[in-house]
């Protein structure tokens, strides 16, 4: 866990980098593909463990106490190395097989969501 108010700590976490080409939806779901954490930094190993169940980068950031910008950089590396996969709403190419540009256009998913909400125990 790092203190987000200390820039030096963050600087270390992301290896001094300031950006990535990964354009990440904060509410896309990220999930672990490879659970072997040897050789990873502490923060990266944490991410790989937490992403055992699908989780949004925003929630990941909140749980680790790392700002979203830094989470994005860490995730970009993990994606490149095959540890993490992103199930994103804004990746039409990946979703082309199902024929929908976005899960919000998927009628079957919408219906499941609506029924699920109605039946939600409160």
């Amino acid at each position, binding site marked *: 866990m790092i203190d*987000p108010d200390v*820039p*030096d700590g*963050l*600087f270390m976490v*992301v290896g001094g*980098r*300031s*950006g990535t*080409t990964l*354009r*990440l*939806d*904060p*509410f896309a*779901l990220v999930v672990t593909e490879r659970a072997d954490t040897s050789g990873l930094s502490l923060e990266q190993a944490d991410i790989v463990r937490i992403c055992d169940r*699908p989780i*949004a980068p*925003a*929630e990941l*950031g*909140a*749980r680790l106490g790392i*700002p*979203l*910008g*830094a989470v*994005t*950089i860490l995730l970009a590396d993990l994606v490149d190395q095959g540890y993490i996969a992103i199930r*994103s*709403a*804004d990746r039409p190419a990946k979703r082309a097989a199902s024929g*929908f*540009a*976005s*899960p*919000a*256009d998927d*009628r079957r*998913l*919408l*219906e*499941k*969501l*609506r029924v*699920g*909400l*109605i039946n*939600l125990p*409160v």
Partner: protein
Amino acid sequence: MKILVTGGFGVGKTTLVGSISEITPLTTEAEMTQAGAGVDEGLELRPDKTTTTVAFDFGRISIDEQIVLYLFGAPGQKRFHALWERLCEGAVGAIVLVDTRDVEGSFAALDRVERAGLPYLVAHNPFGDEAERWSLEEIRASLDIDAGTPLLRCDARDPGQVRTTLAELVAHRQRLLEQEPVG
């Protein structure tokens, strides 16, 4: 999947998210450049004074193994525009929470969602006796809400009402898809 909850300052966004989320609403921080020039620069981490930190809170509802719904209260200020765009991508739609004591804030929130092109419904969070003072028809007229946009009351503290409001928004999106298939 995700649903956006927006509205003026202090309208009850966090309350609404908190009353139905299975996790305590979490706050995450996104580093934004003040200029916010390019899309990718929006979330760039720069350990210098050109960044400002924004916080937005969110909750989660697991529908089944396949569907996780994230609700997020979106900050509305102009300089968070890049974050807004990203939050809107692939969202089911938005709940615009309005407070009849803050018409101006409600207008601003409606305007923002309109411009984002996101399907939305308007929910009146009745503080005090505002529900008796304002009928839904009067609210629709005074906020100039389109006849096709659902408008209902939703006490943000009541999980049952929040659940109904969320389901209504999904139904609204479904109706729009039937009328005009996207893509």
